């Protein structure tokens, strides 16, 4: 009996010792995404997209780096869509899970503070969805897959001026959200430079947890703007548009890429139909690799991938490409992380499903934006493409 126990003990110790040796053949990528909190759909889309990519690569025997096949291991951690949780999640991934590189956080509110952690610890971070310039600014370790707000702002301005014939605008934004506030300010600057001083008639803010916007909207509507710019998350958009209509506003709205969630239409319903927003890609009417991705995702999960899903796909592929560019993995975390960063910089141009991109000095991609209109069937239809 004792003998059997001894054998068991020895073999289990041997197993434990063997695990690290096996772990050397896997590549660990961490995902810092919001699976609960204000924007859980964003986290879910990211995870679904990443799982699909992982299944593809591991199904084909793994990722080849320097002549050796590595299996992928994705670690998903919830940042609760909070800035402070994104920081602790980043630290957890970097220190406890010993990831090679990090994908996310998605929204700028979390990506700006988490980017600092990634940069300080020397880990490559690629945010799929963050559009605020501060995320990557002066942070050599931080990259992104989305375009920037200073580009998105003018896209919204030009589109509204041309399509709505707008001469004046009203703005409603989320004060406690870096993304929303940054974009609103850029929008105001660009619009007033183009249309003249004080053409943004109302510039109002609200808090993240707010559900009643009647006071702000009453104030905006009283100034009779040609359209209202709402750079807000999809959950707030649903309430804002509805309340504006109930206050008798019949004019146009213009949105930003945070509208582009597949949950927008379930929450907003009919009142959002016909509205426009700028975003990263349009699922309706896509071609080529983008269409293949959309079809596979739809078949697998029963819904059209939103732009977070598409951008996560691109961001993860960029990171994997960088790993391959690194040439060889030594198993020494610090050295490998450095090699991945060199690999990122070595990417000359990347053809993703959200368009072609190349990274500039700040780690930001140069890529096009599209403006979509929400159709009567609730699809996001391509309206116009704008390139830098």
């Amino acid at each position, binding site marked *: 009996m004792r003998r059997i126990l001894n054998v068991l003990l020895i073999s289990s110790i041997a197993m434990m010792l063997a695990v690290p040796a096996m772990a050397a053949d896997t590549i660990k990528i961490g995902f810092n995404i919001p699976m609960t909190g204000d924007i859980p759909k964003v986290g879910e889309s990211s995870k679904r997209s990443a799982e699909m990519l992982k299944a593809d690569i591991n199904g084909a025997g793994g990722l080849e780096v320097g002549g050796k096949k590595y299996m992928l291991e994705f670690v998903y951690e919830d940042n609760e869509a909070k800035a402070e949780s994104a920081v602790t999640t980043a630290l957890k991934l970097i220190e406890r899970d010993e990831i090679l590189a990090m994908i996310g956080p998605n929204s700028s509110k979390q990506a700006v503070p988490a980017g600092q952690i990634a940069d300080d610890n020397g880990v490559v971070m690629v945010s799929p969805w963050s559009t605020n310039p501060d995320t990557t600014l002066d942070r050599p370790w931080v990259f992104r897959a989305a375009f920037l707000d200073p580009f998105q702002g003018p896209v919204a301005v030009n589109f509204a001026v041309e399509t709505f014939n707008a001469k004046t605008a009203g703005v409603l934004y989320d004060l406690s959200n870096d993304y929303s506030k940054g974009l609103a300010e850029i929008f105001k600057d660009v619009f007033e430079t183009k249309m003249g001083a004080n053409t943004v008639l109302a510039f109002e803010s609200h808090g993240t947890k707010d559900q009643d916007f009647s006071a702000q909207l009453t104030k905006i509507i*009283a100034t009779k703007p040609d359209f209202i710019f709402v750079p807000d998350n999809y959950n707030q958009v649903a309430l804002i548009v509805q309340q504006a209509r109930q206050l008798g506003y019949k004019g146009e709205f213009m949105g930003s890429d945070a509208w582009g969630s597949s949950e927008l239409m379930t929450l907003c319903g009919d009142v959002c139909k016909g509205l426009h927003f700028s975003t990263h890609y349009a699922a309706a009417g896509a071609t080529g690799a983008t269409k293949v991705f959309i079809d596979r995702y739809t078949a697998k999960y029963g819904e059209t991938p939103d732009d977070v899903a598409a951008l996560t796909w691109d961001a993860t592929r960029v990171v994997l490409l960088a790993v391959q560019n690194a040439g060889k993995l030594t198993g020494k975390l610090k050295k490998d992380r450095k090699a991945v960063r060199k690999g990122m910089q070595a990417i000359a141009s990347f053809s993703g499903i959200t368009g072609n991109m190349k990274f500039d000095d700040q780690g930001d991609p140069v890529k096009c934006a599209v403006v979509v209109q929400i159709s009567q069937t609730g699809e996001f239809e391509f309206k116009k493409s704008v390139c830098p």
Partner: protein
Amino acid sequence: MLESIIQNIINALQWGSFYALIALGYTLVYGVLTLINFAHGDVFMVGAYIAFFVSTFFLSALALPGWVALALCIPLTMILTAMVGVTLERIAYRPLRKKGAHRLYVVITALMCGLILEHANLAILGASRKAFPPLIEVHVYNIGGVTFTNLKVAVIITAILVFLFLHWVVTKTRVGMAMRAISYDKFAVPLMGIPLDQIIVVTFVLGSGFAGLAGLLFAMSYPVLDPYMGALIGWKAFIAAVVGGIGDIRGAFLGGFLLGAVEIMVVAFFPSTFRDLIAFSVLLMILTWKPTGLFGIAKTTKI
């Protein structure tokens, strides 16, 4: 300018109605038990979710017309939410009370109950939001540049009716008399043959039932539900109850409308960036001037 002021008064009345309805629940429980039931905001959230499931069931499974569904939904939501409130009292507050625990521990228990409700909801239903189905057709009326909807008017009238009803219960009925008596001295009153536990259950039924009604109306007015929706509005309603003078029905009602009015009017006349800063500074000044709230009576602790 005038129409925008009237418009904002209507906005404030609607928004204040929700604060008032929730603050009434805080104040009822506090009045009887001197317990700050911090789970109340989350009971309101549970009420909104119950309303969501009940109305979805009536609309899709039974295919009833919206107004029938609403008529059935109101009592059912109130009863079910009241049961949630009573259950909380039964499993969380009563055992502590029986053991003679200090009030502080009961308050902390209430806070935890609120978190449990939030996270149980999160675990069971997932983090994605629910869209509340439209039960009645919302008509937008426009009179001289002032717009309002039938729903807004209904919310405001309901809040006033609930206040009148609760005020009547507390001041005119025997149950109300017992509540006030317990509030006055909860050691002597049971000796007079008043069943303490039953009166407390009635208090929780009333408070939670109307939180359920508030949840239903809130979900109809702001049809996006998430597990944390009750937290912030619950906190603010608590502040409203304190400003009004916690423990007094009139105080909770007026406090709710006052907070709604302050929040809306600050946005109307100042940059909206300063809303919470100015709104809560105003409330702080009211409390400095009258620390027991508008209707509160100073009580000395008996040793």
